[in-house]
């Protein structure tokens, strides 16, 4: 299968510091792939190599089937890239910047006339497009960054920390924007250090720490990589040892703890097993007051991955 992004043994060093260490990354087409890691994990370095801004020291990099070696503008024709905290020339007006960038993609006047107003409207900059970028707020520059990344209707959109520096409302809007972009059948590679952002937006995720990929899969499979991936909290009308003993016999339950009338059931599966459990509780004479399935958060998974990785902190 051809991937939108594929790296094999990608390594990048800055002097004695290895920013990216033998990274194997596979991003399937038409997915929203999160690239998750703390600050300094090597996310931006990897992305800059993908876009051709940095040269890899070792390894193979393929973007949309093209092996990247040196300055390859023909590959960038199909990519939309929004840098981390994008900086645009302050002397240009918003629409001027988009118009000039669109020309750099070789877009015709008619294409520019149709595409630019549409994008300005989409990112909420309509009415401010004639202002100089120097007058834009950080959030507006971020929106402009998203707009310029979509100018060429790219097959692959690379967003580096798209929510960085935005207020909570802006962050929600950006997430909504990303989902909308993905609906149009594009591959989105989204780098973020915000776990909840990746959790809410992405279908796939690669976790990177200190330049090393710790895990890369669908979000569901990443969760499933860890035992006890979900916890079921059950409140009974009265405490019951019989219920506890009966539940422990299920192969998909790893542990049951009882505290007065509240049970905490650790599950080995992410399948919905609530019907079997509720039937068994009733059969054992218990009365269910409430039942709450609490999934393990990506944050917990991430912390577990980092602690298990053995990568020197």
């Amino acid at each position, binding site marked *: 299968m051809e991937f939108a992004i594929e790296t094999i043994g990608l390594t990048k060093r800055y002097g004695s510091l290895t920013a990216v260490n033998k990274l194997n990354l596979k991003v399937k087409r038409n997915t929203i792939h999160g690239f998750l890691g703390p600050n300094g994990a090597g996310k931006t370095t990897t992305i800059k190599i993908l*876009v051709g801004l940095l040269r890899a020291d070792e390894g193979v990099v393929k973007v949309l089937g093209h092996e990247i070696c040196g300055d390859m503008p023909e590959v960038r024709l199909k990519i939309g890239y929004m840098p981390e905290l994008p900086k645009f020339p302050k002397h240009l007006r918003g629409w001027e910047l988009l118009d000039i960038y669109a020309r750099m*993609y*070789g877009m015709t006047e008619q294409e520019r006339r149709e595409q630019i107003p549409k994008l300005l409207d989409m990112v909420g900059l309509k009415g401010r497009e004639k202002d100089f970028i120097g007058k834009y707020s950080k959030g507006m520059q971020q929106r402009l960054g998203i707009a310029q990344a979509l100018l060429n209707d790219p097959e692959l959109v690379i967003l580096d920390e798209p929510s960085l520096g935005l207020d909570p409302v802006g962050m929600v809007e950006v997430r909504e924007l990303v989902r909308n972009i993905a609906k149009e059948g594009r591959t989105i590679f989204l780098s973020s250090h915000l776990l909840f952002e990746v959790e809410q937006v992405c279908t796939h995720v690669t976790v990177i720490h200190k330049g090393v990929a710790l895990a890369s899969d669908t979000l569901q499979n990443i969760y499933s990589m860890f035992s006890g991936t979900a916890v079921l909290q059950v409140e009974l009308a009265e405490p019951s040892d019989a219920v506890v003993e009966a539940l422990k016999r299920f192969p998909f339950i790893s542990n049951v703890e009882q505290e007065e009338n509240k049970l905490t059931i650790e599950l080995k599966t992410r399948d919905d097993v609530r019907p079997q459990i509720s039937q068994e509780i009733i059969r054992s004479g218990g009365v269910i007051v409430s039942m709450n399935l609490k999934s393990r958060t990506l944050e917990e998974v991430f912390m577990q991955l980092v602690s298990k990785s053995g990568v020197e902190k």
Partner: protein
Amino acid sequence: MKVKASKNWKTRFWAIVKYELLWNIRKKKFIGVMVLAFALATLSLVLPVILSNIVGQQLQRNPDYVVNTGAGIGGLGMFLFAVAIAMNSISGEFESGTIVPLLSKPVSRTMVFLGKLLAAFITLFSAYAILITYIAVGGIVVYGPQNNLHLLPLSLFGTILSTFLWIAIVLAIGSLSKSSLIAALGTFGIFMALTISNPIISMFSDQAWILNYVPGNGVTGYMVGINGQTLYSPGIAVSTGTDNIAANLIKYVLYPSSNVTFFKSIFTGQRIQMVELYTEPLLTVLIRSILVALAYILVFLAISWYAFKRAQILE
């Protein structure tokens, strides 16, 4: 809408030129230098009129005012224009971080570099053309009908060539250092070093010919016997350096077969004696200065291009 991004290089190249041109003409530095240049040009036109009114004498007509004045922006003027146009051109993109979105577009670095060069040329050409036209019109108004106005395009060509040498130096230092400040200060350092050392070497050294091969004013010789003799000058002065291409082009058109004689100054008691060193045709002086300027421009631009092409974008 499905956008079909094309590989039409012309559209993409002109996009870079437009990007850079808008930056050039909106820069405060450039606007400042233009205002200064116009102020000085205006002053040079108006001041004689004011002085003649004060002393009560009618201003004499000077049919050669424009060809003499417009025959070249001075060395300092060229340096200022070069710095104003080029100091941010590459290094400023790195400093501000605007290089990141720019180079992520489907334009090669060579195309970006060439686009920036063309924009610098267009900016310089426009600025000098406006300035020379202003001086020409002002000269006619103040000093009456002017001779040899048809030579002004030559002046424009020479001045642009001379200034482009300084632009190439600014770009090379800027590309290597990725700092606008170092680019400006480095070029200023070279300019000052050459400006200060030039007259000393020129007057007192037997090896003054070496100044023919460095940027700047070069050696000063004289077209002996072709008017302009004064107590201190044996004829029309000719400076051989790359900063004087415009003036020498015009001199060559006016005096095509003349020679330039170079002297060394020697202190003898309480006066300075001028000892003749050598003589060469004005055409040789002119061609050499053009070739030297072109060689420097090519070398510095090649350095700048290579540094830009190989630069890793860490910003």
